[in-house]
């Protein structure tokens, strides 16, 4: 074994910049995917308990589809498949404005939305029915009672799994590499390919993913404390 690690080369240009850009891309991709996934996830969860049979069924089908097809297949489908159905002008515009980022965001965001919606749904289901009934008897409509009474409790209950899936989402952004998205794993492989500092580059990647994941876990713990409701 040779374990004389050489990090100097990674701190030199152009590799350092490449890794920094990779890290920035990963974080931006994560943020965009998370906003899409959480927003859509909440919407889907609420529709799922709306009592409209057709809408509930549609969400159930959506969730099964997203959860039962591998993420990589979703990425390829959006990037190489669905993108070609767009008008040629739109396609070339997207091509020039970071198609890798856009389609990765859509694919990962839609995929993780299914998981978030299930997290919130299980939270919604564990809020006692009396809460809705009480809210409705006070004269609140369906959406108002969800927004002010049920959803805050549901999110509180589902925060642990929510945090968990946030971390999964963050790590899944590395799959966007397959579409040529220049995120952290892409940058690491590129630098590794040029320097052959295999251990060093993967140590950098490991530390990056570990640090951000731990940060997300800590943020989840803080959030759980902040939103803890009396009696929970």
């Amino acid at each position, binding site marked *: 074994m040779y374990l004389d690690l050489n990090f100097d080369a990674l701190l030199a240009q152009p590799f350092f910049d490449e890794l920094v850009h990779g890290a920035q891309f990963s974080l931006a991709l994560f943020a965009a995917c998370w906003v899409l996934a959480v927003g859509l996830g909440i919407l889907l969860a609420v529709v799922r308990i709306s009592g409209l049979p057709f809408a509930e069924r549609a969400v159930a089908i959506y969730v099964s589809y997203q959860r039962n097809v591998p993420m990589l297949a979703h990425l390829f489908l959006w990037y190489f498949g669905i993108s070609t159905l767009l008008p040629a002008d739109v396609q070339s515009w997207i091509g020039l404005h970071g198609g890798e980022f856009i389609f990765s965001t859509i694919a990962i965001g839609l995929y993780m939305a299914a998981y978030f919606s299930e997290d919130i749904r299980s939270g919604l289901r564990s809020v006692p029915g009396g809460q809705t009934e009480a809210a409705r008897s006070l004269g609140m409509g369906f959406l108002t009672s969800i927004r002010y009474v049920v959803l805050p409790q549901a999110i509180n209950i589902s925060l642990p799994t929510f945090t968990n899936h946030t971390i999964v989402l963050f790590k899944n952004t590395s799959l966007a590499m397959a579409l*040529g998205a220049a995120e952290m794993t*892409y940058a690491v492989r590129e630098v590794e390919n040029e320097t052959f500092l295999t251990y060093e580059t993967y140590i950098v990647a490991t530390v990056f993913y570990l640090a951000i994941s731990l940060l997300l876990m800590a943020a989840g713990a803080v959030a759980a404390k902040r939103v803890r409701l009396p009696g929970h």
Partner: protein
Amino acid sequence: MKTLTRISTLLLAAGALAWMAPSYADQLADIKAKGVLVCGVMPNVEPMGYMDMSKGVVVGYDVDFCRAVATSLGVKLELKVVSSEARIPELLEKRVDILAAILGYTPARAEQIDYSQAYFASNQILAVKKGSPLKVRDDVAGKRVSTMKGSSNLVLMHREIPTAKMVSYDDAPSAFISMAQGKVDAFVLSEVMLRRFAAKLGDGNSIEILKPAVGVEYWGLGVRKGEPQFLAAVNDALSHLETTGDAQKIFDTWLGPNTLYKMTRDFRVSPIQP
């Protein structure tokens, strides 16, 4: 009982020591003693190294060169499939003796491993969709160009056309499709692969080549550093293949006029000039 434990501990320790003891002889002597040359080859790069489904073995241009080296050393050939990312670690960690794995010469790689003489010279070419506004090689300045991950084209393009924005995909078909779909403006690849795509596309009219070539990449067999006898034996074997005409025969078998590549050999086995 206590004695028994002690004895077995001692035996275990002795066994572990014997197992850890490195081989002292040089690699050439080791290979000859074992009677086997373990050669790392690619499993999915036709016609260089790929799985022949009907026979269930890996065959190709690279494989034939490795076999010729083994024959010349008087040992048996054992093939081990490697991936393009892991091929150099596999060599450095002694899981293979030698690499015949489409290994283009780059200075960074040459710091990690030693290269034999070049046994192949690959013209690296830019291709665009037919009708593209790009007409000559240097038109790709500032444009998006696709390639394969782990490919030395990244280094080559960085040197020749530094303003081109490189986008690398997991495999050649993805890189090709992204060009065909207009996600990138051009695709940089070896002439061999280009001819293969053109042949698969039928009339070969849907892509155009931007001239001149971006560069020539010299492929060598890869060996570990610090094994001068082994490297010399490999180089002798390659020179011998050139003089006997066997190198030409291997070329013609896989790439020559009677194959779908229809290429002519415009290089000879010769030392790689950095």
